């Protein structure tokens, strides 16, 4: 099917690749603005406190310090930092600066100075008197009676129950789970817990702000969501949207961490207060403890099956930790059900629900997978446990109960992004092929259940199946504008943001394919709220599917315009003309190149600019599917876990650029492997994140895994651009359950709390020996 395409489905080099490998200035910190003020934030040392007084007088007298701003200097506007559809399904519980601080790291004062040294000195000289309050760090304690109330202010809105620290709450039921369980021969009831994770994007959050010559605020920012950023800034700074311009240069990694508006407002505040350009650059410590982290979640899971292995009931009831503020709190929780439960669609009854609670810890937010991996861990592992209970091959059990092409699940309709969803049938689902290929690649049939022992080393294998989505249907929109130049090249303007995924390249490939021109004739610009059309941004695995469809539609409009104009030029009927290989050809054999045609159209003949825009909003969200397999070796003397091999096969529809698609699967898998085995956030008793640097927070490196084998299966999604679905998130979903299941196969130990630290394995081994 790829052969009919010229650019689509080919491993094209990235359009920004040359700049990247040559280290060209491309990212926000590379912009020079010599007179920009340095902005630093004074942060709370307490997890929960009231600010009694702030004395900035000494700090203000330091040479070079231009201004210090506290809650007394800013208007009190409740908002959410979440960059998501509007109105947001997240509570308005955040203030630019507040009299109350709710976690260690909450901003207390904004310092603006002419040099970094002066700014740092000022931070030390600001005197703050706090009245400390009791804090709550354990999410299971947070909603109990007597817990300190984190959001006791009266002006926040959208919180489910302030008095019990419940930011959001959701419940849905299909059928009657308890009644169905009575008919089940096998029932598994367990509790699974997954800790948080840091995005650890290599480029720290940063922004540069200034006023343009007519006084509009310009914000250059490493953001995944330039248009949401503009809207949120407009709200909190009380400046009309028309007076704000957000420019997004290259982004040095996001993974959802730059889907919230975090650093930008403080630089913008300084620019508005002083009239001067301002730059804010978070340190690694600030990125770790004061941006966003992943939602820690815990689930009580129940799975019931008939004697023949048919899964009849599933219940996931859980709790999610949103930290001090509720950005993305409801939606990440819902996704942990909505992107996992439809996978096992042959059930009679399903329950999903629980609370998302506030604690005095760093705020959680969007993170690749967006809740789905937190839901898949209990679901997949409980089914794995069920298989062992039934003395059945777990892969077989998952295979026979999972969704296939042409099938559906009522959950699609019930659960959407903070509201009801949309019904959809799986038009493309090559899960079976993923299973078959992965099973062979890992050697499942010769390895599973064999307990291979070599001295003190035992080996085992585990599997996990996953699905995700492609954008948020009926909510999130992407748009594209294509403008033709006289040499037959095209400017492709998109509001979508390439965070390194290669989406600029993929969107250019779509335009090039429709317009029949070589890839280098498509010049991509993304994104600038003044210049590029609206796009909600890069999140929810949406860029290829949602923005890609918009690009395809815009390119088709341009193609139609070209043919219409060529018909006038040739004086022929439109139906006699075709666009092929960058030429308009007539049935009689005459032809004109796009450059010739457009030069004439612009300068001499029928003078017109060809420029078209198109928008796209998904009617559904076709899921990509994956089957992943882990082989681990456990040292029974020390508990050390070695990941020998990780195999993942995914169905992402037609891979528009196989190299970039594979990169997403490989990168997502490695992030999941890191979360499963190495990445462990530790807090002090006072709620301070102790692992806020790359010494103590272990991002996996090249020596931390054995083999990583990722592959794509051929598929075609009819609603996607040229058959494509998404691939950005699904890679991160499977490593935790697959590795947990492999540890059980190897050592007979069920670790139900991720990450799987070697000491946890060792303690279990010691327990078994006792």
């Amino acid at each position, binding site marked *: 099917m790829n052969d009919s395409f010229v650019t689509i489905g080919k491993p094209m*080099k990235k359009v920004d*690749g040359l700049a*990247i*490998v*040559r280290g060209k200035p491309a990212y926000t910190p590379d912009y020079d603005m010599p007179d920009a003020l340095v902005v630093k934030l004074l942060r709370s040392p307490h997890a929960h406190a009231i600010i009694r007084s702030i004395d900035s007088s000494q700090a203000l007298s330091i040479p070079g310090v231009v201004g210090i701003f506290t809650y007394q200097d800013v208007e009190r506007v409740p908002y959410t930092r979440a960059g998501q559809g509007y109105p947001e399904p997240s509570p308005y519980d955040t203030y630019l600066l507040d009299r109350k601080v709710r976690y260690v790291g909450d901003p207390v004062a904004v310092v603006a100075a002419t040099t970094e040294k002066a700014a740092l000195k000022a931070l030390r000289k600001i005197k703050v008197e706090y009245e400390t309050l009791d804090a709550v760090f354990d999410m299971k304690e947070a909603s109990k009676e007597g817990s300190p109330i984190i959001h006791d202010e009266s002006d926040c809105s959208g919180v489910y129950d302030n008095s019990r620290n419940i930011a959001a709450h959701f419940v849905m039921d299909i059928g009657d789970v308890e009644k169905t369980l009575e008919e089940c021969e096998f029932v598994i009831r367990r509790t699974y817990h997954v800790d948080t994770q840091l995005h650890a994007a290599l480029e720290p959050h940063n922004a540069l702000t200034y006023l343009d010559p007519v006084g509009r605020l310009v914000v250059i920012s490493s953001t995944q969501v330039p248009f949401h950023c503009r809207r949120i800034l407009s709200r909190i700074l009380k400046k009309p949207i028309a007076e704000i311009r957000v420019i997004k240069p290259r982004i040095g*990694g996001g993974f959802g961490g730059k889907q919230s508006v975090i650093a930008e407002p403080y630089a913008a505040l300084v620019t508005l207060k002083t009239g001067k350009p301002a730059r804010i650059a978070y340190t690694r410590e600030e990125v770790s403890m004061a941006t966003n982290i992943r939602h820690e979640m815990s689930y009580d899971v129940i799975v019931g099956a008939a004697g023949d292995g048919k899964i009849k009931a599933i219940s996931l009831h859980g709790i999610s930790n949103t930290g001090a503020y509720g950005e993305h709190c409801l939606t990440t929780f819902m996704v942990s059900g909505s992107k996992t439960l439809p996978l096992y669609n042959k059930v009679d009854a399903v329950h999903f629900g629980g609370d998302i609670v506030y604690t005095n810890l760093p705020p959680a937010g969007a993170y690749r997978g967006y809740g789905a991996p937190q839901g898949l861990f209990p679901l997949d592992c409980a089914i794995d446990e069920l298989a062992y209970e039934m003395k059945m091959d777990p892969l077989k059990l998952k295979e026979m109960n999972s969704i296939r092409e042409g099938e559906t699940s009522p959950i699609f309709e019930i659960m959407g992004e903070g509201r009801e969803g949309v019904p959809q049938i799986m038009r493309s689902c090559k899960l079976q092929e993923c299973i078959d290929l992965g099973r062979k690649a890992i050697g499942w049939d010769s390895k599973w259940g064999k307990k291979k022992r070599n001295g003190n080393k035992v080996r085992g294998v585990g599997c996990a199946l996953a699905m995700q989505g492609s954008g948020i249907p009926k909510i999130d929109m992407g748009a594209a504008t294509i403008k033709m130049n006289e040499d037959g090249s095209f400017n492709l303007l998109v509001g979508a943001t390439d965070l390194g995924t290669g989406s600029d390249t993929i969107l250019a490939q779509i335009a090039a394919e429709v317009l029949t021109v070589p890839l280098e004739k498509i010049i991509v610009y993304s994104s600038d709220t003044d210049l590029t059309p609206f796009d909600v941004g890069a999140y929810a695995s949406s860029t290829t599917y949602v923005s890609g469809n918009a690009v395809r539609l815009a390119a088709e409009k341009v193609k139609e315009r070209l043919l219409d104009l060529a018909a006038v030029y040739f004086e022929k009927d439109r139906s006699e003309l075709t666009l092929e290989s960058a030429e308009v050809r007539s049935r009689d054999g005459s032809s004109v190149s796009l450059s010739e045609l457009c030069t004439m159209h612009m300068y001499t003949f029928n003078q017109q600019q060809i420029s078209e825009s198109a928008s796209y909003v998904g009617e559904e969200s076709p899921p990509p599917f994956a089957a992943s397999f882990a082989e681990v070796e456990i040292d029974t003397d020390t508990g050390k876990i070695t990941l020998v091999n990780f195999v993942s096969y995914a169905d992402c529809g037609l891979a528009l650029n196989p190299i970039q698609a594979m990169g997403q699967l490989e990168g997502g898998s490695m992030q999941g492997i890191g979360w499963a085995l190495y990445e462990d956030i530790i807090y002090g008793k006072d709620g301070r994140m102790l692992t806020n640097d790359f010494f103590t927070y272990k991002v996996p*490196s090249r020596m931390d895994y054995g083999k990583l084998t990722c592959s794509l299966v051929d598929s075609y999604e009819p609603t996607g651009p040229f058959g494509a679905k998404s691939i950005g998130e699904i890679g991160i979903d499977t490593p935790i359950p697959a590795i947990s299941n492999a540890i059980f196969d190897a050592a007979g130990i069920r670790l139900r709390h991720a990450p799987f630290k070697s000491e946890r394995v060792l303690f279990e081994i010691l327990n078994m020996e006792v």
Partner: protein
Amino acid sequence: MRIAFTVNGRLHELDIDPGEYLLEVLRRIGYKSVRRSCNSASCGTCTVLLNGKPILSCSTFAVSVDGQNIETVEGMADGDKLHPIQEAILEEGGAQCGYCIPGVVMTGEALLRENPDPSDEEIRLALNGNICRCTGYEPQNRAIKKAAQVMRGEIDE
């Protein structure tokens, strides 16, 4: 204080603060490929070569390179012609967000100068300090291997 050092063969003489780190100074004089990430010598993003050996510029005092040679990724391509490591990274999909790439290229270059025919294990070991959060490492490891083959003349560029 005044120091002098060469960057990619070009002599720079400039005033620095005694406590300034090389990362800051290099960025200040225009070598924007040298990037700050962890700022604590644990991610490899800011790697440059000092007299041919990889060092972490975020934790190297600028004063310590007085009179010595620095190489950054800006000096790797020959005009429009990319260095084989740069070319291979593009071909293998080893660059996603690209923030780590200057550090990866420089560490890879230092490895291949010392060991023109590294094994897979030697590549992993040499680049172990270069964190990449995007790629999952496999494409970058393949790229270094491929570049080594190109540089040895075993496969065409």
